[in-house]
């Protein structure tokens, strides 16, 4: 335990900003993946254990596009489309069959999908570690902000995360599509009665959730190494964030992502041996005192 170290850092502007930036970057990647999971769970009622696999596929598609073309920006366009399309196919031929089923069937199907996708990745891309280079534009020394080093690529991730959060908010609260999605989350039968094809709507929502996960994988790929099975820990983390933030609440997921980012980034200063403990402690506290999450709706 190093409480003095933690307090020293908080009292030092450079150190404080360094760890705050670190927290925000962790939060942005978490938010991208978890928001997709929360959207799918909130609207479709499906807990998708293969959600992290979609993040993994996004990273691998990025690897292929960058390897072949040398162009990360092209990957930024093509990879989300690819993962979104995969989401569309998965929903149409697999997920659609288990709407309304007991949770155990959802778990079995999506966990099976996770295992299949891991093996698909191993078969297509191989078992060895892959790596995506940092885009050339960001291959520069970190910028300094009040003495705090911030890698340029991390600034890009933060900006993209904010843009996606804004975009999601606009789509879900200001567009007709968003209103229909919110309505379908509350009462799909009524929405169907109003002449809206709920099945197609579900497909689009799942594809959107998949696209978000894939986008998280794309942005994370220059920072991390790629290997089969890399998606599962991300699924677990996203589920924790979704539980803390609230099922179906994008705003809640954003707040939860920041909380987890802060706990991890500052926790390691004060409690290096068990910084993860605080994240799980937060989950337990939420489940006990506010099981619907920070700003979710109470589950029936």
């Amino acid at each position, binding site marked *: 335990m190093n409480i003095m170290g933690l307090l020293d850092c908080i009292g030092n502007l450079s150190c404080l900003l360094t760890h705050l930036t670190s927290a925000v970057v962790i939060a942005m990647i978490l938010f991208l993946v978890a928001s997709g999971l929360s959207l799918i769970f909130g609207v479709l009622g499906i807990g998708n254990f293969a959600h992290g696999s979609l993040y993994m596929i996004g990273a691998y598609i990025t690897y292929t596009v960058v390897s072949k073309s040398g162009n990360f920006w092209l990957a930024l366009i093509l990879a989300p489309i690819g993962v979104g399309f995969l989401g569309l196919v998965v929903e149409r031929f697999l997920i659609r069959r288990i709407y309304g089923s007991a949770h155990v069937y959802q778990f079995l199907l999506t966990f099976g999908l996770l295992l299949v996708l891991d093996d698909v990745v191993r078969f297509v891309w191989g078992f*060895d570690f*892959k790596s995506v280079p940092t885009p050339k534009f960001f291959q520069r020394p970190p910028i300094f902000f009040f003495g705090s080093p911030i890698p340029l690529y991390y600034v890009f991730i933060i900006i993209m995360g904010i843009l996606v959060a804004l975009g999601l908010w606009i789509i879900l609260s200001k567009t007709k599509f968003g209103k229909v999605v919110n309505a379908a989350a509350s009462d799909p039968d009524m929405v169907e009665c109003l002449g809206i094809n709920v099945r197609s709507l579900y497909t689009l929502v799942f594809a959107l959730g998949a696209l978000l996960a894939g986008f998280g994988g794309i942005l994370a790929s220059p920072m991390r190494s790629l290997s089969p099975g890399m998606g599962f820990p991300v699924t677990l983390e996203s589920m924790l964030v979704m539980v803390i933030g609230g099922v179906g609440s994008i705003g809640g997921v954003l707040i939860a992502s920041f909380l987890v980012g802060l706990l991890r980034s500052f926790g390691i200063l004060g409690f290096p041996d068990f910084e993860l403990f605080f994240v799980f402690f937060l989950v337990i506290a939420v489940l006990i005192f506010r099981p619907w999450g920070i700003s979710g709706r109470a589950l029936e």
Partner: protein
Amino acid sequence: MRQKGKESNNGKGEALFTRRDFVKTSLAGATALMIGSPLMPSKAKAEKPIKLGLFGVCSGASAMAGEHALKAAQLWAEELNSKGGLLGRQIEVTQRDTSNKPEEAVRFAREFAASGDVDFIFAHGSSAEAFAIASASKELKRLMFASSEAVDLTADPKVRSPYCVRITYNSLFTGIVQGKFAAKISKELGLTRWYTIAGDYAFGRDSVNYFIEFLKKDNPKVEVVGQAWPKLFEPDFTPQITAILGAKPHAVYSAHFAGDVITFIKQGMMYGLFEKSKFVMKDVINYEVINALIQSLGKFPAGLYAGTQYLNGIPDTKANQDFNNAFLKRFGIYPIVYSANFYTGLLLLEEAVKKAKTTENEAVIRAIKDLSIKAPIGTGSNSMVTMRGRDNQLINYAVGCGVTMSEAPYLKNIVYASWDEIMKDENTWMKNKGYL
């Protein structure tokens, strides 16, 4: 039996059993009995293949270990089979995926042991699996080969199994070598403030503890100013990297391996971490890491202190070169430490079986004790390694430290450790722990 021409029938016109029928039947029965009989020439028995049962992690983030173990086994089997096999018997290999679960490892060990047709069992999974295997080997009294670096597997008399043979490096030896090397450079360069980072599990913690023990033993002026313990396969080391930057250590010891070390270096580079402190990297000299970093950074980072681990050219011996050439020709990729260690284990098995002139487990166990063979990871002019008889631990393999460079062989100024020194330090450590 009735003579031909005087056959009777059963009243329905059907002939009864004739003498010809009797002779034919008797000959057929005698032949069938002979085939299973010890009287048959031994050539029929020698055709029964020698079967290796492999199991370990073949999926997920550690899939590479399983794939390379299998490739090593395939190469070894093909080489032997092309020369007529072992003791005149062809080698067959079968593999199972434990998905990194010790209970699955034990299940496969029992399955192979009970099947009756698996002659030798090789485990290439995690340390948790290796400990489970050691226990199972004691219970089943079956020879099992394990690849785990966890020291207690062979050091602790309560854990050690007379039937379990370790065919990989030992993290205590690595800690001794790297700790003493770090002590030397810390004295030369005045590096007194050290930080450590390793995965938060037994291997990570043990690796760091051994390193610090031997670093401080040779340079008591060293101070550990901070330690980070991210979880295994952590995708984001940003909090740890920023903590290291804040602590401003003179040097950092990283016991990460495989995907974690790749991620750590990539993210550290973004912060300029490697310009702020000297680094000693435990497990970076390996193609899986080097190739991924070249893909990502354009070149392998130079100027880091690193343990030798394993490469084509490390060790720089003919035995290693031959193995690399054969592996590359067969599979199109270079071997990595998992394949090199596994292949060494198989070479040991081969020599032990030849020495024992049988595949019977107890005889092979006796034959393998204190056996020395030429191997890709061996040291000296003859590239020898030895399976130490007192605890079934591999020794005399090439282990040292150097400085990384951007071109092959990626490590220069290599200083290989003396095994006399290593074992002197090991003995002291074992006595302090009460193991000796």
